[in-house]
C-alpha cells in the first residue's frame, strides 16, 4: 500500500503517425502534470486536492480538450463540464455548460463544498461562478485555432466526432492528421487508502448546444468510493449507458475482482473504439486500460514505478522519459 496517481488526456483514434510536433507538447504536459501530482502526494496533500490541481493544470493547457483548448459546439462556442468526487465521503460536485469559467473542475469542487447540491449547469452554474468570484475569461481564452479547424472539418464531414477522426473514405484528412485531443482526468490515492477522482472536458466536436456527456455524470465518467477512483474518457454516450466508472468499483465490491480485472472487464464490454479509463485502488494499484487506438496517459506509484504513454505498451512507444 502506498500512494498512486494516474491521469489522462483522452482516449480515441490517435494515429500512430501522429507527427512529433503534435506528440511532444502533449507528452510534456502529461509529464509535467504527473510531476505536480506526485509532488503534491509526497507533500501529503489530500487526494481531493491533488486531483483538482492536476486537472486544473490540464485544463490550462491548450493541448487537451478541457478548459483552454476545449472543442467547440455546433455554434462555435465552448460548453465545458467537469466533475470531482471524494471517495472517502462520496461527496461529489459537477458542472456543465460553462462558457467563461477558466477552471471548471474548481467550480465543481465549490458546488460540492458550498451548495446543498451536487450538480449545477448552464446559466445557473455561471451565476454561481460569479457569486463565488472564480476566475472567468472571455471565450477567446478557451478557443484555439485548431479547434475552429476541427469544427469546420466535422461540419464538412457532417458528423459529431470524439475529437479523434475515424478515417472516412474520401474525407479530406484533417490538418496535419490531428484531431486527437480528449477529455482530461486524474485519480489519486494516498497512503491511507483515501481516493479521489476528477474529470473535465469540452465535450464532442460539433456537439449540439446543451449536450451533456459522461464527464459530469457520477458513475459514468467519474466515480470514487472506498474501493477505487475512476476517470473515463471516450464516447460519452457509450460511457453513460455502461456506467463505466461505477461499474469498475461495483465489480470489485460485488464480484471480488481486482482493480485490473474489473477495469479490463468494463473496457471489454464497451464497444470497441469507445472508451478508456484510468483507475487507482485503495491499495495503491493503478490501471489504465482502453479499447481505442490510444489514450494519452501517465501514472506513478510510491514504489517508484511511472509511465507515460499514448498507444498500447510495446507499440511504437519510444518513451523518451526513463522511469523514475
Amino acid at each position, binding site marked *: 500500500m502506498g500512494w498512486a496517481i494516474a491521469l489522462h488526456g483522452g482516449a480515441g483514434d490517435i494515429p500512430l503517425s501522429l507527427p512529433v510536433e503534435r506528440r511532444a507538447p502533449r507528452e510534456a504536459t502529461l509529464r509535467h502534470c504527473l510531476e505536480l501530482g506526485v509532488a503534491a502526494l509526497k507533500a501529503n496533500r489530500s487526494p481531493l486536492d491533488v486531483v483538482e490541481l492536476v486537472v486544473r493544470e490540464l485544463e490550462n493547457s491548450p493541448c487537451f480538450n478541457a478548459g483552454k483548448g476545449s472543442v467547440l459546439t455546433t455554434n462555435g462556442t465552448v460548453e465545458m463540464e467537469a466533475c470531482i468526487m471524494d471517495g472517502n465521503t462520496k461527496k461529489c460536485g459537477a458542472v456543465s455548460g460553462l462558457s467563461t469559467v477558466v477552471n471548471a473542475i474548481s467550480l465543481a469542487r465549490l458546488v460540492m463544498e458550498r451548495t446543498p447540491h451536487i450538480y449545477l449547469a448552464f446559466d445557473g452554474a455561471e451565476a454561481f461562478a460569479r457569486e463565488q468570484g472564480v476566475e472567468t475569461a472571455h471565450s477567446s481564452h478557451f478557443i484555439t485555432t485548431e479547434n475552429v479547424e476541427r469544427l469546420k472539418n466535422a461540419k464538412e464531414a457532417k458528423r459529431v466526432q470524439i475529437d479523434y477522426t475515424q478515417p472516412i473514405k474520401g474525407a479530406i484528412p484533417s490538418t496535419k492528421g490531428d484531431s486527437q485531443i480528449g477529455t482530461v482526468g486524474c485519480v489519486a490515492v494516498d497512503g491511507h487508502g483515501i481516493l479521489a477522482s476528477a474529470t473535465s472536458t469540452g465535450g464532442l466536436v460539433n456537439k449540439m448546444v446543451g449536450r451533456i456527456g459522461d464527464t459530469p*455524470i457520477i458513475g459514468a465518467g467519474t466515480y470514487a468510493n472506498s474501493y477505487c477512483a475512476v476517470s473515463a474518457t471516450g464516447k460519452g454516450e457509450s460511457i453513460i449507458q455502461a456506467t463505466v466508472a461505477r461499474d469498475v468499483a461495483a465489480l470489485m465490491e460485488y464480484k471480488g475482482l481486482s482493480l485490473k480485472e474489473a477495469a479490463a472487464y468494463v473496457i471489454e464490454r464497451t464497444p470497441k473504439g469507445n472508451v478508456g479509463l484510468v483507475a487507482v485502488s485503495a491499495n495503491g494499484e493503478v490501471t489504465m486500460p482502453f479499447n481505442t487506438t490510444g489514450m494519452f496517459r501517465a501514472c506513478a506509484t510510491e514504489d517508484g514505478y511511472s509511465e507515460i504513454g499514448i498507444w498500447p505498451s510495446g507499440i511504437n512507444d519510444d518513451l523518451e522519459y526513463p522511469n523514475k
Partner: protein
Amino acid sequence: MVGWAIAVHGGAGVDPGLPVERQEEARRVLERCLRVGAAGLRAGLPAVDVVEMVVRELETDPVFNSGRGSALTRKSTVEMEASIMDGHGRRCGAVSGLTTVKNPVSLARLVMDRSPHSYLAFDGAEEFAREQGVEVVDNSYFITEESMSMLKRAKEANSIMYDYRVPAPGVDSASPGLEGAKVENGLLMNGLPISVYAPETVGCVVVDSNGWCAAATSTGGLMNKMSGRIGDSPLIGSGTYACGDCAVSCTGEGEAIIRSTLARDVAALVEYKGLSLQEAVDYAIKERLDEGMAGLIAVSRNGEVAYGFNTQGMFRGCATEDGFMEVSIW
C-alpha cells in the same frame, strides 16, 4: 414469454399528516396510470413505450411533482428534468432545465431516438424541443398556487425542502426532522441532513412479455433549488436505470441518490452479486444511502416487482399480468 409487470411511483417521503382526501386523490391517479400501462402491455407495446406513456400521464396530472405542479426554483420558475432508459440495448435519453416542454419524458425519448446524444439540457434542450415540434407551453402553465405558497414557506424557513402537497400552517409542523433544516445563511455543507422528505418525483418501470425492461423518471426537482441545479432524475445510473436484468426508478433526496448511484447499484447487485431483485433493493436502501432518504421501484426480467424506501411512505403501485394490482402510500 414472461408475465409482464409494471410499477409506478409518485415520490418517496410523505407527510404523515397528509389529509385523507389528498391521499385518495393520489391513489386514484396512480391507479389510473397503472391501468393505462396495463392496457398498453396487454396490447403488446414494448416496455419503453409503456414507461413513456405512463410517465406522461403522471406528468400531466398536477397531483405529483413533475410537469404541472412541479416544485419551483428560487426564482419562482419551473425547471424540469427527466430520463428514460430501454434495458433492451441500454439506450437512454435525458433532459434537464426544461421550462416550456409539456412532457419532459417524451423529449428525453426523442433525445434517445432522434439525436446523436444521450442528454440535452437548458437552452439546447428547449431548442431541440422546438425542432422536434413537441408541445410547448408558457412556463406559467406549470406553476400552481400551491407550489407558489410552498416556495414562500420554503424561503421563510430558509431551507431546501421537499415538496409537500399539504396546505399546513407551517413547514415545521408538517415534517419531523425538518428542525435540522435550518442552515447557515447561504452556506450549506453538502451532506448535512438539511431535510428529510423526497420531492414527489414520478417514475415507472416495466417488464414486457418479452422480458425487456425499461424505466423512466420525471421531476421538477427540489423546492427552492438554485436555478441550474440538476438532481438525480435525469442521471442514468442514479435516478433511472435499465438493463437486461431489471429496471429501476428512484425518488427522494437527489443528492443522496446520486452519491449512491442508486438505480445502477440495484442492478449491479443483481448482475454482479447475484442477489434477487428484492434482496438487491433492500440492500441498496439499507447500505447505500448513508443518511440519505430515498425510495425506489424495480422490476426484473422474470416479471418480479420490488419496492424499497427508508422514508415515511412512498406513493406507489404495481400491476402484474395475472391480474394483481395494488396502490399504497405507507
